[in-house]
């Protein structure tokens, strides 16, 4: 069981061609480290050390993702809006988000007088902890997964619903009417959109027959589900993207923040690092839902293969699995950012109409189609 806690360390490029030429694996390295720690400090301490390393890695990844996604969002926004975007700090403005983080760190984190101090200060941490917990079952590369859970999909849908609690908590504890309205909107929104997100995920679970993310990825070795599954899976993919955009409170579903109506919604009263944690959690949530989307529909770290083109498939195998995974994930993140900078915001009743009158019936019928398809074996 302890071997499951696998960690990364900076790895030198392996240049020897005689070594493993197929998809390059983290498993060997993690096994070596595990072996070495066991020999050195004994089994108990080795587990402790491995957990610490894993924790540090998650926090590091969390911070890094925040920085990268913020600068990515700003650049995407700038180019769509025919602007230049940040370009002063660092090469081509790439250190801008780092400078902003430093600014947020040194700012005072205020707690309003009338606020419920305990809940007010707890809320951003819950938002962050939920985002961190969701990182556990994601396969970042071949054999590189923190926790290969056999009910990975269930775990993800269960834990991601906790995020609404942090928003409700922040909105209620702020003792601010804007925050309260934002939190209530967000509560209605996340609870409803969880349904169609869950149903579209179920489509893949039905096709694979497993809740484990590893199994789902393995089942896509001969082609990603979005190609194998005909139109129903494409519909499921579209519903999934719409639903997760709503679940992560991003425009056009950013009613919880709704700048022109509620100034900043649930985080109106937050400042400094507490605000930054909400901000970071939002971006990491976007990353996670996109990673799940990439895993379920686009084959996770599986390279792109075309039928029996041996030469082409071989070339694709040379690209490391982590690049495949991050490439797909960032493509989906770009999609979500692209939506944000194109569409106006929905109104609250239209938002719920969209879910209950359009997405939910469509994804239910779609699930039925997928089930029939899976039983009859009509997919490739």
């Amino acid at each position: 069981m302890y071997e499951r806690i696998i960690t990364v360390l900076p790895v030198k490029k392996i240049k020897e061609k005689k070594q493993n030429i197929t998809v390059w694996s983290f498993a060997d390295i993690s096994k070596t480290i595990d072996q070495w720690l066991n020999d050195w400090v004994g089994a108990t301490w080795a587990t402790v050390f491995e957990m610490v390393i894993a924790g540090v890695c998650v926090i590091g990844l969390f911070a890094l993702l925040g920085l990268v996604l913020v600068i990515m969002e700003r650049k995407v926004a700038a180019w769509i809006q025919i602007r230049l975007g940040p370009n002063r700090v660092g090469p081509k403005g790439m250190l801008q988000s780092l400078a902003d983080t430093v600014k947020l760190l040194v700012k005072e984190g205020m707690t309003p007088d009338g606020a419920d101090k305990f809940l007010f200060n707890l809320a951003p941490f819950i938002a962050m902890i939920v985002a961190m917990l969701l990182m556990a079952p994601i396969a970042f590369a071949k054999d590189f997964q923190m926790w290969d859970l056999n009910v990975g999909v269930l775990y993800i849908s269960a834990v991601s619903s906790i995020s609404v609690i942090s928003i409700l908590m922040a909105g209620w504890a702020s003792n601010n009417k804007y925050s309260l309205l934002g939190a209530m909107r967000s509560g209605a929104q996340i609870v409803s959109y969880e349904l169609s997100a869950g149903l579209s995920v179920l489509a893949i679970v039905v096709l694979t027959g497993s809740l484990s993310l590893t199994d789902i990825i393995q089942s896509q070795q001969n082609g990603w589900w979005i190609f194998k599954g005909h139109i129903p899976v494409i519909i499921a993919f579209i519903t999934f993207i719409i639903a997760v955009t709503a679940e992560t409170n991003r425009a056009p579903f950013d009613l919880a923040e709704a700048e022109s109506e509620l100034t900043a919604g649930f985080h109106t009263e937050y400042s400094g690092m507490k605000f930054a944690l909400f901000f970071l959690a939002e971006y990491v949530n976007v990353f996670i839902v996109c990673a799940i989307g990439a895993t379920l529909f686009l084959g996770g770290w599986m390279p792109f293969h075309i039928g029996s083109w041996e030469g082409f498939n071989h070339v694709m195998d040379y690209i490391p699995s982590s690049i495949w995974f991050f490439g797909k994930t960032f493509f989906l993140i770009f999609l979500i950012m692209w939506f944000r900078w194109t569409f106006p915001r929905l109104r609250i009743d239209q938002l719920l109409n969209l879910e209950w009158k359009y997405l939910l019936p469509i994804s239910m019928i779609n699930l039925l189609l997928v089930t029939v398809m899976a039983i009859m074996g009509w997919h490739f």
Partner: protein
Amino acid sequence: MFEEVAKTAEGDLVINVGPQHPATHGVLHLLITLNGETIKKVEPHLGYIHRSIEKMCESLTYRQFIYVTSRMDYLSAHINNHACALCVEKGMQIEVPDRAKVIRVLMDELTRIASHELWWGAMAMDLGAFTPFFHAFRERETINDIMEETCGARLTMNYMVPGGVMQDLHPDFQRRVKEFLVLYKRKIHEYDEMVTGNIIFQNRMKGVGYISPEDVISYGVTGPAARGSGVSSDIRKLYPYEIYDKLQFDEVLETAGDSFARYLVRLREMDQSIRIVEQLIDNIPEGDFQAKTKAVLKLPKGEFYTRVETARGELGVYIVSEGGTTPYRIKFRSPGFSNLSALDHMVRGGKLGDLVASMGTLDLVIPDIDR
């Protein structure tokens, strides 16, 4: 006001939108009574940017007071100046040269386009789409550059003076305006692609903020907001000033009376302004750009009133003169104030999101309301 507040039922949520709020585009304070998300009442509170422009004008001479009016409705500064200059000319019976008339109309229409461009972007931003704002600024900046070249400033130009305009057109003016016309025609279809045709946008706008023609008249709503309900109120057509009676353009009318109708009116009004600019840009007559006037202007004793069509509606200038060098009393009838008064009527029973949509289509400029 106390009684009104006392009437609010148990469980109603009273929230303050403004004076500092992203949706109000200025320091407007709306006291909103909500029942959940549904608006029960909107009560606008004014006075946060009151600079007593009318009183200031009373201590300035007839040449000087015009520049202050740029600061009222800063998005149609030219048109405000134009209204004041017209009023002084009416009192002094100054005959404005043809060239000056054409220049004034050209500048007015360019200002109108620039103002509508900004409104289009800002309204899309109110509805949550940030990108159109920057795309609108591409065209608006081109107009601002033209203004900068001829008038020397981009926003508060102070170009109109009693008797004509302050300086002659810049030699590059015609070329730059033609370049702008090309740019505008190349890009205007994108407005429909990005905003007008968008299903989310249409759902947000259609059937929202309805106001009937009768209510338009009783609230004194003017400009595109009135024309969206089918009430003909274009001063350029009804009471033509300068050379508007000789120009070919249509008064844009929509009958739906909702936010989307007002949106379409403004969008199509830009095309009409482009039509006017196209008619005039090659036909600017030669001659003086300014009539010969006395060094010190003294209006004869009496009352003078002129009205023009700004980008927001009817602007009236009322001057009472005692025969001196400064006006005895000046009153501006600003379009924003009357349009704002209809807001409560429009949004009652709507959602909080509808407030933003209705307010966006009224195109409120707060310094114009407060003065």
